[in-house]
């Protein structure tokens, strides 16, 4: 990266940009557009759940040939839940969250001029863009998009006879995901190489902010697990198009016996969940990393237990690759395997608990600056705890038997990875918006956004646990076929109202985001009085991030409220202020924290 100015055209600056800051904004905006689509879908199917088979003008207006008189078709209900899940997990929470903040923060927080390979970074975004476009196009296929659940278990996903969405819609889904995997692999390799090689002088691994550790480990999990999804998808493409039998065997459908022999859907489940479970942490760890940074900065306190936090991220990452079988306790897998997976799964509770305790201890005796970013981070800790605890029920194979695939599961994973990760993403946006656009977001709207969102999130997902405990399976178009579930309907109405309000409230955020981009208050260089390196760069973006020499790092990122005498809380702040930037050299006699 040289410091002299390239001549930039509109195309190289805004479209085929190789600058990590621009690429991060591209990831963010694409992710947000996908997010809007997915949230809107969830609001549509919530209407159907609360008021089954009732005519809605909005459904008539949007669903085209997949509705009759404003009532959505049962197979399109399944299409909606499928695409909602796919988009949320992959396009919003993987690419939108990790893509945005890894790209923005990795070079800025380690003191690098750009990613190791700007070109590969650009390719990563454009592959993601392409896969998003294909996924959106699949919505308009005549027979409807993929509709066998976001887990696309064959044979349902392999046989167009079984469900209309398994035709062209499924083909596009697979193509889109294959491209997505390529995008995320290229991105992840870039992140790993950059963090390994381009740290500025003095930035030892043990001085990296926890955001960097989270993104780093996330990238490693991605590299380990995403290729397996690609192979699962390829084999499924073979089964669908070339007549192989990897996943299929002994099938009689539409009045005839199919030729497939010897395959097993359980193989697909293994391959899928080998990605699918680590994916949860690919989504969650960046959010936790962002939270660590924001909670520490806004508490004006060092993050509690820095080393324990790193160790628990590593432990979570390692364990996450050997627990996938807990999604498969009742698939007919050998019960002994079930025991092993129960054991490894419940172990994850230990590092997770350590993280939660450490966040709470960081709040303790802090001087909390309750900015919207801080509130979202606190909200994340809350939903992470609520959702994480029910994992103890689901991870236990004996208990999983009876709540597997019920709404209890839906409530659990939405809280622990959905809402938590989204909160982390919002926190990150509010916090680093000045770094992205040189302007600040409005705090009043931020507060409205936070309180409405967290109330609605709990309003949706807390009662949902109980519906699951009543035995209601997920992915049911309507419960009217079972009188035993009639008493759940009113609860579903309440949930839907919370969902509609919560979904609509995101408009507050969108408006704040786009208006602030052009009309927000101009940002100062270090608005949150933070220690990390990104706040030493100029407000206006420049190629290479720092004018002149790269900064040199002398200390860790968490010297907030450090005192002259570290053992005396009444002594004066070091340097007369409650934060000490990483580029400030140690004073004589000062010890590393």
């Amino acid at each position, binding site marked *: 990266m040289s410091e002299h100015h390239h001549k930039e055209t509109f195309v190289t600056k805004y479209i085929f940009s190789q600058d990590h800051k621009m690429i991060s904004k591209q990831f963010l905006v694409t992710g947000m557009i996908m997010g809007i689509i997915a949230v809107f879908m969830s609001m549509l199917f919530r209407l159907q759940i609360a008021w089954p088979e009732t005519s809605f*003008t*909005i459904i008539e*207006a949007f669903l085209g040939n997949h509705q009759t008189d404003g009532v959505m078709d*049962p197979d399109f209900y*399944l299409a909606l839940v499928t695409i909602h899940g796919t988009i949320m997990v992959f396009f919003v929470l993987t690419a939108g969250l990790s893509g945005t903040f890894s790209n923005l923060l990795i070079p800025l927080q380690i003191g690098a001029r750009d990613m190791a390979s700007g070109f590969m970074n650009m390719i990563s975004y454009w592959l993601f863009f392409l896969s998003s476009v294909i996924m959106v196009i699949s919505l308009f296929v005549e027979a409807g998009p993929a509709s066998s659940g976001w887990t696309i*278990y064959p044979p349902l996903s392999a046989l167009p006879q*079984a*469900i209309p969405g398994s035709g062209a819609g499924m083909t596009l889904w697979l193509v889109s995901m294959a491209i997505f995997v390529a995008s995320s692999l290229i991105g992840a390799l870039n992140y790993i190489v950059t963090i390994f090689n381009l740290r500025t002088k003095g930035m030892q691994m043990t001085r990296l902010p926890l955001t960097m550790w989270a993104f780093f480990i996330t990238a490693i999990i991605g590299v380990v697990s995403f290729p397996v999804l690609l192979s699962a998808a390829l084999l499924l493409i073979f089964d669908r198009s070339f007549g192989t039998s990897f996943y299929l065997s002994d099938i*009689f*459908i539409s009045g005839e*016996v199919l030729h497939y022999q010897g395959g*097993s*859907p359980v193989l697909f489940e293994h391959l899928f969940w080998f990605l699918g479970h680590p994916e949860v942490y690919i989504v969650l760890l960046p959010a936790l990393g962002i939270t660590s940074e924001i909670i520490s900065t806004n*508490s004006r306190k*060092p993050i*509690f*237990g820095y080393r324990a936090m790193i160790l628990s991220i590593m432990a979570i990452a390692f364990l996450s690759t050997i627990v996938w079988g807990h999604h498969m306790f*009742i698939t*007919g897998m050998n*019960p002994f395997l079930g025991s092993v997976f129960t*054991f490894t799964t*419940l172990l994850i509770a*230990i590092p997770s608990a350590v993280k939660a305790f450490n966040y*709470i201890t960081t*709040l*303790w*005796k*802090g001087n*909390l600056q*309750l*900015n919207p970013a801080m*509130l979202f981070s606190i909200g994340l800790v809350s939903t992470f*705890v609520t959702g994480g605890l029910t994992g*103890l029920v689901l991870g*236990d194979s004996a*208990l999983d*038997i*009876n709540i*597997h*695939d019920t709404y209890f599961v839906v409530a659990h994973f939405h809280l622990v990875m959905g809402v938590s990760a989204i909160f982390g993403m919002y926190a990150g946006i509010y916090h680093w918006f000045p770094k992205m656009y040189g302007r*600040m977001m409005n*705090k009043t709207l931020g*507060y409205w956004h936070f*309180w409405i969102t967290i109330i609605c999130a709990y309003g949706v997902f807390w*009662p949902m646990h*109980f519906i699951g405990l009543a035995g209601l*399976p997920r*992915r*049911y*178009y309507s419960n009217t*076929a*079972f*009188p*035993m579930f*009639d008493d759940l309907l*009113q609860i579903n109405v309440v949930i839907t109202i919370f969902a509609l309000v919560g979904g609509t409230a995101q408009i507050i955020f969108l408006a704040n985001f786009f*208006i602030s981009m052009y009309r927000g208050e101009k940002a100062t260089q270090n608005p*949150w009085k933070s220690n990390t390196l990104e706040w030493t760069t100029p407000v206006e973006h420049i190629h290479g991030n720092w004018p002149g020499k790269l900064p040199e790092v002398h200390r860790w990122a968490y010297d*907030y*409220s450090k005192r002259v005498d570290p053992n005396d809380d009444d002594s004066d702040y070091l340097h007369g202020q409650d934060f000490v930037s990483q580029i400030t050299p140690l004073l004589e006699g000062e010890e590393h924290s």
Partner: protein
Amino acid sequence: MLALFYIFIGIAIGVSFWQITRIMNLRGVIATDEDNAKQGKYALLFMAFFYAMMIYCLIFMNVIMLPESASIEGEHDDNLFNITFWLIGIVQFVMQFLIFYFTFKYRGNKDRKAKFYADSHKLEVIWTIVPAVVLVVLIGYGLWQWNNIMDLSDSEDPVVIELYSRQFDWQARYAGEDNTLGRGNVNYIKGRNSMGVDMSDKNSLDDKQVTELYLPKGRKIHFQFRSQDVLHSAYMPHFRAQMNCVPGMVTKFGFTPKFTTEEMRQSSEVIAKTIGINKIRKAKGEEELYEFNFILLCNKICGASHYNMQMKITVVDQEDYDEWIAEQPTLASILNN
């Protein structure tokens, strides 16, 4: 209607845009002491709302829960669930309190100085060890129970039943006199042999195909599951039983019914739930009243009518069961006619 809807949307967008620009004109981007004070109080208010909701749901949604396990094996499931639920419930209430109370208590202001507290080896060890010890108990009990349920080898004289799933219904086959099911494969599906039973297998001849499940109380039932087309999952929530039906594979599960359907209807939990349901059904104008029945549902997404794939299960005393099973014709007698 459509036009009205668009007008409504238009007005809503206009109003919200006007409100939002009004707020956007209020400058202010970084939390001040007043903001901290206000948001801290909101955190307390939110905590009150959250606790009220949690407690309300825990108390008043008890009635909609599944009644106590109707299988002997499921008793330990209920136990383990209760232990786990109490445990996570307590942790949840304490942790959420700390999160929101600290947010309020340590809300920032100019005079406050944060404590520089970066590490405590002792605390870290405590909150690694304590969860670990608690988990050992949960894992231990869980694994013991799991082996308990999944081990079908030691039961004497079980009732052997096959459940065969397809889009979108269930079929069932009893093993007959010899208590052994004949082989099955999709290649044999033809006409009335809708479960694809291989009639050249001697064991098949006395098998009995039925449309409704009758189970004898107090005897171990061995289920085997097959699927004709896509994945299904046989879910019998009242018995704490579930197993996937996988094309090309035979899966197994077993349990011992503890109550007959009639006994279940007399249980206070079921009566309360039934009253609640019938109140709602009456309000909706449904003619038919709900009466408790055990049920088998499909719990793995399997296509458009996934939501309507069920089979009634009736648990009766051994004598009634013997009477019923004797009435059912054997496969040989049906298929050879």
